[in-house]
């Protein structure tokens, strides 16, 4: 549209994010003291391959939701570039932006606040088609019924209001709404975190089926490594607004390189019971430091059991240490041996 096609773009990538920063100014405390800045997302790069699921994992407050909302232009972007299907999203405004929104939709975390309580379920799913002029009015009604069936709801339920559904059913309505405009990319911001474990599996399976049937691409946000391992092809680990490790699923779970990733994985119940890993488990101590004007050096240093002097002074950069596996830690050398393994061997 308004921007020239990106000649360097890899046609396999549906979404290309580079140098993305989202900073929130805090209100001044008083006339003399400025309020500081929340570095919610502080320079991240990632590409999402067409038809794949890209996961962003990290503790609460690490900036995952902000990163997801930024990809959808739902928060003001401080710096960086977001290309969806070759179109630069960060400079789009008005009708051009609205037109692009057809291609990227979102499923929210909280099924209780993501549906307008004053609208009937059918109207919620139909609204995106009305606003974006998808199909004729008759077709829209038929498509609503079809979507309801497809996500495991009964078409008669279109007349109900959101509070008349259970949490899992409400999330299904959210999925149907996201599918309504036939998007290519669906951002899933912790879509199962608010649900019971049994229902989580149903929703995850539904998402996988939909991906297979419609060739969807997912940007999948979660704090739960188990969920990420189940559904994601590629995974980025976020810590305080930055990506500290990124790789495909197999490599990340078999050889985690960053001490933070290692700590997260060893906290997952299935991994915890593996023999011989009891001793070199990293326990995360304390809360993550605040993203308000973060200190220099490695952001993880205050909680890292392997931190050296250098870690507090110098900021490690994200680099590729083996094919497709990126990590940001001073102590991971050319040999690719992470600090926790070295310590265990010593």
């Amino acid at each position, binding site marked *: 549209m308004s921007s020239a096609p990106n000649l360097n773009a890899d046609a396999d990538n549906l979404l290309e994010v580079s140098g993305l920063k989202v900073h929130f100014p805090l209100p001044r405390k008083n006339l003399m003291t400025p309020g500081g800045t929340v570095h919610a997302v502080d320079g991240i790069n990632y590409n999402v391959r067409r038809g794949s699921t890209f996961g962003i994992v990290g503790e609460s407050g690490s900036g995952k939701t902000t990163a997801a*909302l930024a990809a*959808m232009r*739902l928060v003001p972007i401080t710096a960086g570039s977001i290309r969806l299907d070759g179109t630069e999203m960060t400079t789009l405004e008005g009708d051009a932006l*609205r037109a692009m*929104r*057809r291609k990227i*939709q*979102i499923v*929210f*975390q*909280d099924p209780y*606040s*993501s*549906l*307008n*309580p*004053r609208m009937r379920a059918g109207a919620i799913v139909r*609204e*995106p088609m009305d*606003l*974006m002029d998808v199909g004729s009015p008759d077709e829209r009604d038929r498509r609503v019924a*079809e979507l309801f*069936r*497809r996500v*495991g*709801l*009964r078409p008669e339920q279109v007349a*109900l*209001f959101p*509070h*008349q*559904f*259970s*949490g*899992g*059913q409400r999330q*299904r309505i*959210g999925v149907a*709404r996201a599918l*309504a*405009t036939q998007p290519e990319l669906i951002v899933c911001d912790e879509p199962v975190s608010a*649900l*019971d474990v*049994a*229902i989580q599996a*149903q929703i995850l399976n539904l998402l996988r089926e939909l991906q*297979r*049937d419609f060739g969807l691409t997912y940007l999948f946000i979660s704090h739960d490594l188990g969920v990420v391992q189940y559904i994601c092809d590629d995974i980025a680990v976020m810590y305080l607004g930055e990506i500290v490790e990124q790789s495909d699923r197999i490599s990340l779970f078999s050889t985690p390189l960053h001490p933070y990733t290692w700590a997260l994985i060893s906290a997952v119940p299935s991994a915890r019971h593996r023999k011989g890993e009891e001793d070199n488990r990293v326990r995360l101590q304390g809360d993550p430091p605040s993203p308000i004007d973060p200190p220099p050096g490695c952001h993880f240093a205050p909680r890292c059991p392997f931190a050296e002097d250098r870690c507090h002074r110098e900021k490690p950069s994200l680099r590729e240490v083996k094919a497709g596996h990126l990590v940001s830690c001073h102590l991971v050398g050319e040999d690719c041996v992470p600090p926790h393994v070295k310590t265990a061997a010593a």
Partner: protein
Amino acid sequence: MADTEAPPTPMDDTEPVRIEHPVVEFLRMYLRNWAAIAGFLMFMAIVFAALFAPALLQRDPFEMVWMPFSPPGKDGYLLGTDNLGRDLLIAVIYGARATLAVGASAAGITIFIGITIGSLAGYYRGWVDEVLMRITEFFQVLPPLLLAMVLVSLFSPTLPTVAIAIGVVSWTGVARLARAEFMRIRELEFVKAARSIGSRDRRIIWRVILPNALPPLIVNAALTVGVAILFEAALSFLGLSDPNVMSWGKLIGDNRDYLLDAPWTVTMPGVAIFLTVLSVSLIGDGLNDAFNPRLRER
């Protein structure tokens, strides 16, 4: 679609799903409050009097029908007569019309200005909020009765002027309430969802956020009717209302000098005002219960 067969109904109905239409639920909650029912019935009776009594009775409330200051119940005058020998029962019934008309339209103006200012401030925040809130504060610090008196004296003392004057001096509370609701609701995910499907600001403000902000505003509107009625009474008591239209405030104003000798001339319209304000407060209470989701769960 890949599979033509509908998948089985979801198995995640762990929580019982209540199927009750919101209107039915609202009525059920409202009807649990007997005081609110009484308030509603009382208000309906007053509205009925205001709408139909003049046509049914065919009387002139200003007519001198008997000697002045006849006490209630004597000589066939249920509420007695006033200083000009007018039948107080007829005057009070006829007065309902002006009082309610001014009360309701003043409340309407209050709600309209308050919601417009409050929703824009709460939605856009930033400098829009700053400017609108300074204006609100300005109106808040002015003494309302004095301002209304000035407005009515500046223009003609007709019912519309009185209603507008009352509306102009009493919208600040509604504006603050609407602003707070908008600030709260605009952060909820369904508002982000609305934007993500391409809704413009106008749609988000009026079609998405406002319907969700309405319950406390409706409760407030019911109370505003009561306040506006008291305001109208105060203005006509001070002689700042239409002298050619019978209203309760005017009756009290005309008879204020005889409060000690013929107290009924003042208390009869006073009781009418009291009952009307009471009925709208009870209705407001009932609406509050019916809209309050925490009470709903019980």
